[in-house]
């Protein structure tokens, strides 16, 4: 049993978990999502700073990406080193569609997701059957291939300069995305909606099929499960959410840069997951906020961001060996058992 599984099993405490598969939790999730959206929407009225709004928008983009990666890594046990390619594809796809064709934003959004789905299906069909470490390498290879293509196909993508000229933002349904406030609200909406959908996938019977495959793929196939098909499906679905993150990013920076498809995006995605913890659904979201905060604070204080980040990673990887949310959950369950014992 890997550490990941041990962590999910409640560690040595053996504390029984609550009921997880029921209708009640769906309604609860929707309620939480609604509340979160309301809070986020009100935020600009309380704290008017643009920096805060920018921060939240960036968190939306990376949060969607990191949570989608967790669907692969945490729930399905598929460690992809190349997931960032879909973030980049989302950004470039959306940017190019808006620049080159006259379509409206919703249409471009859907079209980008469709294109991503097709590409993810092709790559997934090749990669998903591979065993763990080879899956990791080949996904990385595909990401670097896409990155190279972006760099060299300068006539289409602008090469290493990125997509220049900005992204046209025709008004749709009364929403004007060149208005920063509108962009903020739409980003939050995409984040909350995306998280809710991913939550549904994770808590659906399909989500539990993925957990079974993660824990014991062989046994899963002896339960009649087509392991390849399940893995393929989640690979494509995760790609779509990653691409959505890329679209938010493209709107935010008004363009797309090769860095969005570089391997460091995948690396940061994995780091965010470890930072926040892979055993809870919101772990990656917490990790995203932490990493971006760390990023912003450290780059203001010193130019040697690398050393600080490196030390922080070591602290979590060697010292703590689990993410923040994992600690929170453990601390909480420990307090509950202690309270129970005292009575």
């Amino acid at each position: 049993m890997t550490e990941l599984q041990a962590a999910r099993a409640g560690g040595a405490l053996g504390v029984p978990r609550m009921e997880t598969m029921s209708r009640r939790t769906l309604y609860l999730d929707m309620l939480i999502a609604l509340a979160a959206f309301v809070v986020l929407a009100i935020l600009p009225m309380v704290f008017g700073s643009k920096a805060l709004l920018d921060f939240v928008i960036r968190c939306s983009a990376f949060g969607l990406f990191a949570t989608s990666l967790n669907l692969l890594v945490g729930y399905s046990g598929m460690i992809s080193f190349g997931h960032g390619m879909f973030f980049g594809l989302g950004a470039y796809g959306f940017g190019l569609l808006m620049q080159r064709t006259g379509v409206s934003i919703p249409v471009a959004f859907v079209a980008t997701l469709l294109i991503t789905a097709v590409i993810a299906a092709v790559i997934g069909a090749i990669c998903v059957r591979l065993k763990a470490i080879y899956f990791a390498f080949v996904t990385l290879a595909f990401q670097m291939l896409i990155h190279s293509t972006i760099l060299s196909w300068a006539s289409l993508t602008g090469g290493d300069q990125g997509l220049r000229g900005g992204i046209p933002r025709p008004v749709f349904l009364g929403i004007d995305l060149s208005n920063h406030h509108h962009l903020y609200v739409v980003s939050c909406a995409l984040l909350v909606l995306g998280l809710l959908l991913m939550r549904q996938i994770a808590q659906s019977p399909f989500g539990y099929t993925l957990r079974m495959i993660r824990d014991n793929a062989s046994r899963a196939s002896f339960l009649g499960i087509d392991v390849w098909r399940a893995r393929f499906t989640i690979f494509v679905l995760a790609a779509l959410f990653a691409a959505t993150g890329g679209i938010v990013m493209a709107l935010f920076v008004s363009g797309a840069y090769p860095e969005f498809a570089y391997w460091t995006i995948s690396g940061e995605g994995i780091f965010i997951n470890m930072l926040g913890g892979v055993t809870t659904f919101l772990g990656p979201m917490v990790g995203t906020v932490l990493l971006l905060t760390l990023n912003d604070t450290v780059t203001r204080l010193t130019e040697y961001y690398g050393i600080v980040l490196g030390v922080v990673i070591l602290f979590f990887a060697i010292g703590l060996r689990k993410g923040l949310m994992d600690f929170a959950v453990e601390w909480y369950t420990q307090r509950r058992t202690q309270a129970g014992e005292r009575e």
Partner: protein
Amino acid sequence: MLAIRGLSKSFGGVKATDNVSLEFADGSLTAVIGPNGAGKSTFFNLITGALKPDTGSILLDGVDMAGRSPPDIVRHGIGRAFQVASIFPSLTVQETMLAAVGADQRRASVLYRRFPLAETRGRAEHAMELLGLAGKRHRTAATLSHGDQKLLDIALALVLEPKVLLLDEPTAGMGTEERWRMIDKVQELWETQKITVVFIEHDMDIVFKIAPEIIVLCYGRVLATDAPDAIRRNEAVIEAYLGTEHHTGAIA
């Protein structure tokens, strides 16, 4: 009815399964015994699709299962429990059972519903009760005792409502008392569920006490299939277990 015809499997030059032909009537309870290396687990692996046979057919109610994939065979109604409990460590007992019944991927509802349909929930509940695990439903599988994990393993095989249940050493790794409780459970399941049960077992006391029919495998071949008394007196079987040195008559 499960009929095996001419089943063979070789690894390199070694015949792990050698022209095995057997029949298991509906609702029968059969024990498969044999010295170590006799090919018992290989036999199970061939039937459940973990291995592809070189030759032979595996007919479940007339449909040939030989060479099909494990998920396909499971869907046709052959379930298996493992010698070393093969479960999902991070899921609770209840989650395990619900996930198993909810895993039917042919429905799109596996994505947009939050929970398995009512009739399938009932199956999960029923299987938990049969194996006596209902009281531990919220315990994470990794934290269960060894015996409970084996019960969970059997529950997983049962919950898909198989026609044939293969149990690979259900009492492996257990102390004497626990063994009898487990085998009582197996017998109870067989009597109430009216399915065909085949189990591999090393404990001769158990085998001779409960199995109406015993199959003896040796070097991949069927040495004998008969009722317990006949097996006890079968010379070839005695020789296989004890060697040619002394035949004092019966085993156990």
